[in-house]
């Protein structure tokens, strides 16, 4: 059987980058056996709530598991990746990372090299504008699920990342130097539909909450509709 492309898992947050990476990796021929979410010991999940991921993985029809990352991160990531390799036979990990975060090393890349797992990063250092255009062109339905001041106000929450929103992001990025894809956590997104989803996710009820400089959607009720 297909040794190399068959034992891949994709790291999943439910946001636009993990979804685009999954989409690209599929197109590149990787057969993704499952989605993995690395969670902190004290999961707050303000930007990417687990119950939303459940809906996403259901419409993707892929299994989903969480692995807790214990600090220090260096060791935590190593043991998580070692677990995937040795216990689950994983040889390839796909991530939606685009860049180093504030010049910190990319833990997954660093630790995977140490453990001996191949990391596939189809979005790495790619042109941000092109990535946003690709998402829009391929009809990903993406909403802003968590935004940070001072770049954003709460009016962004729940809005679609469409052409109009992308244009406003370009303006904010030009004025403030914000990463266009929110790579430094300036904003987070949730994917409600994309070509890989068998059904569309609908947000029925949510509230807007604030924590420090973060404003986020608290999702209360979701449902699925046929495409």
């Amino acid at each position, binding site marked *: 059987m*297909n*040794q*190399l*492309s068959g034992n891949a898992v994709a790291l999943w947050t439910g946001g636009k980058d993990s979804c685009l990476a999954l989409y*690209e*990796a599929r*197109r*590149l*021929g990787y057969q993704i056996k499952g989605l993995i979410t690395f969670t902190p010991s004290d999961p707050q999940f303000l930007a990417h709530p687990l119950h939303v991921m459940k809906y996403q993985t259901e419409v993707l029809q892929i299994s989903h598991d969480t692995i807790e990352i214990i600090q220090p991160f260096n060791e935590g990531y190593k043991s998580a990746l070692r677990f995937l390799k040795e216990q689950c036979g994983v040889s390839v990990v796909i991530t939606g990372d*685009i860049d180093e975060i504030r010049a910190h090393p990319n833990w997954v890349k660093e630790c995977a090299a140490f453990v001996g797992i191949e990391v*596939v*990063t*189809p*979005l*790495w*250092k*790619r*042109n941000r504008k*092109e990535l946003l255009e690709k998402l829009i062109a391929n009809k990903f339905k993406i909403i802003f699920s968590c935004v940070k001041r001072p770049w954003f106000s709460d009016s962004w929450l729940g809005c679609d990342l469409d052409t109009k929103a992308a244009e406003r992001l370009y303006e904010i990025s030009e004025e403030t130097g914000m990463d266009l894809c929110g790579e430094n956590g300036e904003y987070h997104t949730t994917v409600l539909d994309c070509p890989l989803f068998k059904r569309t996710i609908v947000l029925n009820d949510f509230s807007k909450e604030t924590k420090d400089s973060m404003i986020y959607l608290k999702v209360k009720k979701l449902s699925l509709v046929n495409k």
Partner: protein
Amino acid sequence: MCLHKVLTLGEHSVSCLLTSVNEKYRRISMHGVRVELLDQQAASIGIPLVKMLMPEMPDMKTYETIMKETLVRLKNRGMEVSVFGDIFLEDLRNYRENKLAEINMKAVFPLWKIPTSQLIRQFVDFGFKAVIVCVNDRFLDKSFVGRVIDDSFLKDLPDNVDSCGEYGEFHSFVYDGPIFKKPIEFQVGEIVHRRYSLTQQDSSSQYACNSVNSSPFDNGFWYRDLIPIAESRRIV
């Protein structure tokens, strides 16, 4: 495989594919594949294709001039990097790096030093399909042209032939794989033999085209023609 690797690693957005084409015969240099198939291949992959039109046996100077003009034009359109599929030939890499440095572009080699037996294995495992279009008769006989790269092909390769044909032992045409929207259809045509008696100068130009370099004289090649299936006929 090189394009696949670039897309896997991110880092660069691929704006165009660049192929040198023999202007007179309208076929890919050295490989002998018809331009129509090349066009279909690029369309299926979904990345624009730039063709470098070369005269019939270009000398080194002509080759380099055309190459440079093309790359400068691409650079002016915002391209900074040229990606090459070379795997382990050091002098070829140096040559490319030097030429690109002259025009302030960067050469990138994503497959560099990956063991070729491992690479070809990955190629097959990923579901790429390639047909052999040209072999150097010093290494392989004519039964190899027209064959598909699969397990049995790899098993039949003699020990003195590199798994990826890195010394120009064979050339292939990829007609399907994970980055293709649809497979390229063709019919296998006739087998022809061509012999190039090269001058020293010409041998260096062949060299620049990434062909066999160990013996500049008296190279014989078997070619298998691939005939495109016209769009209209395919619909019927």
